[in-house]
């Protein structure tokens, strides 16, 4: 297989004494193409070169992508297993660490039963590893308790797409088609900061006259260029979408031929949106009537439109409803399954798409199979070589695992590729949960805030030290190549799971010698499922610039555009959403009079474990801040740079003020990438969506004062 992939005629700068290895960024779902520069003599990673011919990103990168390679040979990498002795981490051998894990895992299971162990996974890993996390939990440890950080990130989109379209593929169209779209309706996505390399496609379309409608409480760098900025109150997306559909129906913008032929529930939807007149919608959302009407006309009159959304609408206690409603907007216009139009969510984590499809979720098995479906269990058991009766039942969602810890049911946890001590809502509860555990193992390559709670920390590899595949935000399966050998004694996550499986006497189920062997088994495990990867091979990915799932056989070209003929529901028709207005779990009160919303900045990724260790990114954004409107600041006599004390029912923090008119007067915003005293998730609300079990990070009531 080729290490350096480049198309004829594309020029890159080759430095003497260096080789280039083609791969993708380790951060968000864009999975930007890049070549990593390696010094041939020392074998060290020395830099990055744009991959001009990667069709999704064309060599573009954000500052995180440019500096991503700097975490690989970083001085703070954990290079040996660490064991906590008398409250201090001490370097140890793998033998000693594994002995300790085996002893504790076995003791705990003997005393409290199989389900006393739990696994908390993540999706910033390759498909091969994400697939293995589910298998590791269910076979090696034999526990039902496995879930992953996608619950904080993607699960509402997944739930909404499943309900409406029958299949959860993040984007129904390939990204390069965005260039030909006439209108983008974007809700709760600060694309310019969170998925910056998408902006090039939006501008290409805008240069030809395309319009942009952005719904966001803040005038983000994305909303700034919108034709209409719907500055809604956080947590009112369902009202906004209903209001838009009310206008689409009233103004005659519905594609009735498409709706009659391909959708269910239109009459229910029509009835549900009846009350959402512009006046009523405006009252709930705080958006002016003129803007609502203008947005509906632009969206309704666009021949080709894409509805896009992200965490802003998903991280709510009604995230699934929001996704269903926004998706219904695209359906009413007859857009899904056609060229340059459709619906898309911006996957937050690198492999947020692939990682959620293959059994890392409490109730899911590979290929988007369900653990409560006996046929699905039978198929996967067959691939794994176990008796179907040995398959544990469904577990609980990520945040609810901490309820189980508090209830004394979960006694030990293995955290893989995640940092819930920062990224989970209601931090104090999470920290208390970690302290209550009898035994905790963390696999990571930096000593994250979560790792600090652990009894044993196992040194994992970075993305550049292992190979595999990921699935980007389009649903395109792509190749991650190994750039160099692991640093120190670090091992890949799959090797770590394999070693522990051996210690638990389940080694024969994990016989892999290399990643392609895992991939072969994984292809088979996904075969026939909704997310079918069976026809995707490493060679095909390399040849075709990635392959879109579903791809059921090796001669199948993959599926760039979804739902061209029918939807993934049992009757092949999409289910339009009929949803009543429901308030966010927490509304402003006299005591907590303002709304706090959280999000990302362009310089950091998730809990910041990697980006807070990158010099350039820390120079540009060293600490969190609270963004507030000058009128709100004036009310509390706060000037730019003053310390502000913020408090919710769950916690408090003090941060510096940044005053800008680019936010609603009744809202404040704090980015969430920092841990401990700087973590805004001490304040956020863990109210869960009833379907996706995703917490409401985006809305809570807050009080504030000058500190």
């Amino acid at each position: 297989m080729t290490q350096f992939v480049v198309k004829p005629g594309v020029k890159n700068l080759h430095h003497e004494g260096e080789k280039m290895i083609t791969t993708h960024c380790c951060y968000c779902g864009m999975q930007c193409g890049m070549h990593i520069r390696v010094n041939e003599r020392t074998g060290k990673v020395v830099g990055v070169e744009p991959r001009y011919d990667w069709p999704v990103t064309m060599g573009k990168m954000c500052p995180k992508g440019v500096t991503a390679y700097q975490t690989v040979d970083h001085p703070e990498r954990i290079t040996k297993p660490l064991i906590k002795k008398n409250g201090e981490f001490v370097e140890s051998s793998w033998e000693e660490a594994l002995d300790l894990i085996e002893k504790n895992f076995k003791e705990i299971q003997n005393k409290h039963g199989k389900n006393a162990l739990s696994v908390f996974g993540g999706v910033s890993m390759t498909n091969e590893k994400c697939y293995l996390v589910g298998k590791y939990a269910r076979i090696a440890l034999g526990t039902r308790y496995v879930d992953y950080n996608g619950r904080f990130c993607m699960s509402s989109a997944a739930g909404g797409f499943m309900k409406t379209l029958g299949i959860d593929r993040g984007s129904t169209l390939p990204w390069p088609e965005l260039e030909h779209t006439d209108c983008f309706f974007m809700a709760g996505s600060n694309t310019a900061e969170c998925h910056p390399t998408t902006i090039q496609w939006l501008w290409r379309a805008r240069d030809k006259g395309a319009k942009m409608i952005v719904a966001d409480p803040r005038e983000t760098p994305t909303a700034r260029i919108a034709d209409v900025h719907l500055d809604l109150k956080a947590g009112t997306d369902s009202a906004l979408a209903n209001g838009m559909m009310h206008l689409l129906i009233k103004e005659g913008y519905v594609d009735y031929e498409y709706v009659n032929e391909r959708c269910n529930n239109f009459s229910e939807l029509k009835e549900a949106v009846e009350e959402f007149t512009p006046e009523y919608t405006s009252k709930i959302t705080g958006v002016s009537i003129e803007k609502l009407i203008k947005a509906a006309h632009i969206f309704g009159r666009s021949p080709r439109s894409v509805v896009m959304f992200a965490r802003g609408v998903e991280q709510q206690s009604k995230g699934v409803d929001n996704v269903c409603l926004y998706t219904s907007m695209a359906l009413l216009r007859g857009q899904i399954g056609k060229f340059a139009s459709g619906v898309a969510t911006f996957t937050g984590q690198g492999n947020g798409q692939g990682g959620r499809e293959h059994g890392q979720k409490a109730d899911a098995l590979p290929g988007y199979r369900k653990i409560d479906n006996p046929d699905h269990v039978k198929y996967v058991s067959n691939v794994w070589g176990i008796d179907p009766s040995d398959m544990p039942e469904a577990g609980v969602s990520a945040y609810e695992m901490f309820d189980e810890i508090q209830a004394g049911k979960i006694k030990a946890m293995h955290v893989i590729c995640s940092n819930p001590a920062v990224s989970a809502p209601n931090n104090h509860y999470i920290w208390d949960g970690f302290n209550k555990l009898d035994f905790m193992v963390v696999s990571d390559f930096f000593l994250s805030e979560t790792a600090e709670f652990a009894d044993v920390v196992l040194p994992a590899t970075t993305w550049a030290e292992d190979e595999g595949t990921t699935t980007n935000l389009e649903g395109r399966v792509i190749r991650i190549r190994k750039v160099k050998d692991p640093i120190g004694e670090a091992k890949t996550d799959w090797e770590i799971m394999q070693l522990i499986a051996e210690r638990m006497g389940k080694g024969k189920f994990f016989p892999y010698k290399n990643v392609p062997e895992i991939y072969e088994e994984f292809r088979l495990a996904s075969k026939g499922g909704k997310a079918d990867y069976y026809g995707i091979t490493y060679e095909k990915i390399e040849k075709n610039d990635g392959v879109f799932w579903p791809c059921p056989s090796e001669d199948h070209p993959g599926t760039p555009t979804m739902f061209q003929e029918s939807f993934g529901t049992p009757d092949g028709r999409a289910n339009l959403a009929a949803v009543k207005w429901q308030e966010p779990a927490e509304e402003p009160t006299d005591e907590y009079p303002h709304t706090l919303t959280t999000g990302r900045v362009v310089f950091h990724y998730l809990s910041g474990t990697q980006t807070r260790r990158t010099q350039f990114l820390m120079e540009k954004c060293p600490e969190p801040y609270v963004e507030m409107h000058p009128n709100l600041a004036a009310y509390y006599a706060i000037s730019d740079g003053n310390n502000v004390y913020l408090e919710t029912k769950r916690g408090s923090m003090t941060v510096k003020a940044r005053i800008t008119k680019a936010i609603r007067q009744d809202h404040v915003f704090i980015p969430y990438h920092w841990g401990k005293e700087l973590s805004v998730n001490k304040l956020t609300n863990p109210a869960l969506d009833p379907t996706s079990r995703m917490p409401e990070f985006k809305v809570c009531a807050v009080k504030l004062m000058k500190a």
Partner: protein
Amino acid sequence: MKKVMYLEFERCIGCRACQAACRECGGHDMKERNYVEYIDFTESRQTFPMLCMQCKDPACAKVCPANAIQITEEGVVLSAMEEKCIGCRNCTFGCPFGIPKFDFEENKMYKCDMCYDRTKHEIAPMCASVCPSDAIRFIDHEEMMELRRKRTQMNLIEGKKPSENDKWQYVPEFFGVYSD
């Protein structure tokens, strides 16, 4: 070198990828030579990138008493030559755009050289390569001129000319590329 740098300030999203990428260029010693500034953070999140204009008759070179700032045959204004620079900082004051930076530890100036090691091979500079919104581009002169005309044409209705007072009437309410 047939290509030129083209900046479209409105597109800048303030991500500073250009600055991170600038550090990556060979010979840039991990120091960025370009700028991204807010217009007025209190008012809006609008930012703009700023690079060396590669002036035809550069003030920085003119005011250099040591003749340390060389101009290549393609017209790229390079950083001061290490052996010649006397650290007087005249260039940093002389440049009307405030481009040259000064390294007080090394006592020498450094500035954007349009990634000369790349551009001399017609490979785009790092900043233009990575800019996610194409606010910074490295394109043919022809293409640049075409873009300039296109930008204005997009905002006009054919055959009429707006004046200062009524120009917004000429911005169409909606026009799609594929409208039939």
